[in-house]
């Protein structure tokens, strides 16, 4: 303890703030990740089933949704953050703090989830879908009894990657006053040249990322046969 006090004096002093920042980051990631999944997974499914030759082929839906997703995916997060300020204000009532960060995080990660889920579902053997069709399954039944079941490991993995990148995004959101570990590092560390704060925040972020990644890979293994 003494040693830590010597190497990282500020961290020890600001320990409660570090814990709070950590909690804020987790909360931001959890809320935006959940909402992004709720919207993004169906979007990914739609992107797959409306493809040419697929269950519910629909050129128009597919290309419009595809374009929207691509637009949001190609915007760098910092630009997205500022570009959607009016939308953020409309939904969250504010553009700063935890609430203000969550809206842009959702906007950034939903298209990401959609594309990841899409590519996970495209991995499913078309023969399996065909077999279900031959057994008399309806498109809707195939979606929730074949695609989502067979694609589950892929979806879990997609969500893992999404959460990892959300942690990164959340740190960026923090730098513009969004709260969380990014905010903590900038506000208490960078602005006062307190190197130990920066390092501590980075280490905590790394730990979280690795835990999420590890958990995701564990689930993936567990779910695949």
């Amino acid at each position, binding site marked *: 303890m003494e040693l830590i006090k010597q190497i990282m004096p500020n961290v020890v002093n600001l320990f409660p703030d570090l814990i709070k920042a950590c909690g804020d980051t987790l909360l931001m990631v959890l809320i935006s990740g959940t909402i992004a999944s709720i919207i993004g997974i169906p979007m990914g499914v739609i992107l797959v089933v409306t493809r040419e030759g697929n269950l519910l082929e629909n050129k128009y839906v597919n290309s419009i949704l595809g374009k929207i997703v691509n637009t949001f995916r190609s915007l760098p997060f910092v630009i997205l953050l500022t570009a959607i300020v009016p939308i953020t204000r409309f939904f969250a009532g504010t553009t700063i703090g935890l609430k203000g960060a969550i809206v842009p995080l959702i906007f950034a990660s939903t298209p990401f989830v959609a594309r990841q889920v899409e590519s996970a579902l495209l991995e499913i053997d078309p023969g*399996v879908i065909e077999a279900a069709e031959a*057994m008399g399954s309806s498109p809707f039944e195939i979606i929730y*009894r074949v695609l989502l079941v067979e694609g589950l*490991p892929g979806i879990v993995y997609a969500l893992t990657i999404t959460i990892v990148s959300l942690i990164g995004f959340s740190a960026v959101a923090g730098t513009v006053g969004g709260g969380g570990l990014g905010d903590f590092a900038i506000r208490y560390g960078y602005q006062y040249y307190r190197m130990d704060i920066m390092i501590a925040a980075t280490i905590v972020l790394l730990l979280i990322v690795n835990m999420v990644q590890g958990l995701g890979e564990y689930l993936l293994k567990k779910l695949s*046969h």
Partner: protein
Amino acid sequence: MIILKDLTKTYKSKRLTVGALNQVSLTIDKGDIFGIIGYSGAGKSTLIRCINLLERPDSGRVMINGTDLTALSPQALRKQREKIGMIFQHFNLMKRRNVFENVAYPLKGKGLSKDEIQAKVLKLLELVGISDKAYSYPSQLSGGQKQRVAIARALANDPEVLLCDEATSALDPQNTKSILSLLKEINQKLNLTVVIITHQMEVIKEVCNKVAVMEEGVVVEEGSIIDIFSRPQTKISKEFVAHTMGYENFEKILNQGFIKDSNRYELTVRISFVGQIAGQAFISKISIEYGIYANILFGSIESLQGVPFGSLIVSFTGNSNKIQEAIGYLEENNVKVEVLKAYGADKTDNAQCS
């Protein structure tokens, strides 16, 4: 009964149009094990996929037990599909469901209780001989075992028809045999109509009672398996039969004209014997009675669905009229004669005897 009427299907892409089916009509009777054979690209898969409308033909009709499937609404079609089982070359099992769950898949939402589903699945697994693997996942099974699971799944809703698209093509010869005998067994036990697509005559010969031969989107020949084997009409059928009976190389040699004596009339024929008819005795008999030489060049015996089927390739020399009479005598006695080659001075009546 399945009636396919004038099915036509053309695949169009930007640059290419492929005529996959051209006015195909077939009638498949209840209880048949109906084989459809052809080389790669002949349109076999397209045809079988038209039977349950996985592929919609551009024109033509698909009638199953009097219902025109092409005229049905999507819901009604799905209902009909429950009565048409299908198995595939690559089994198409769901990786994340175990054997039990795969077979239970088509039973869900059919108004059955959990216990009823359980009983039904176990019964099906027993029927296909794979009860001990109920809780294994597909990745833990061999190809033959996977196909058994697929068969159980296809039978779950008590279908009247089972469609098999190259169901044994990914299996080794031993597994192929055992899957084919399973198909035959369920055909008899359940009075199920089975349609088998294959590019191997061995498969047809093992289980089918009828066969259609396809080439470039057209059914070029159709008939009982004995007919096709004893009197193939088209070049492609002749090739398939020659290959299966093992005389394809022999025909090549024949065509090079190695047994040729242009001074004498010589007729090379393939004589087919079905069931109990003893080949050898007929040959010596006609040789004596008609005063002609009969030189046996090749002989083989195969089993067509368990019925012994023999082929002899015989070269007759002598008086051409006498040879014709001898052939007539054979045919009267239900021995099928197919002319392979005629040589020599007197060629007047080659054509008649084919």
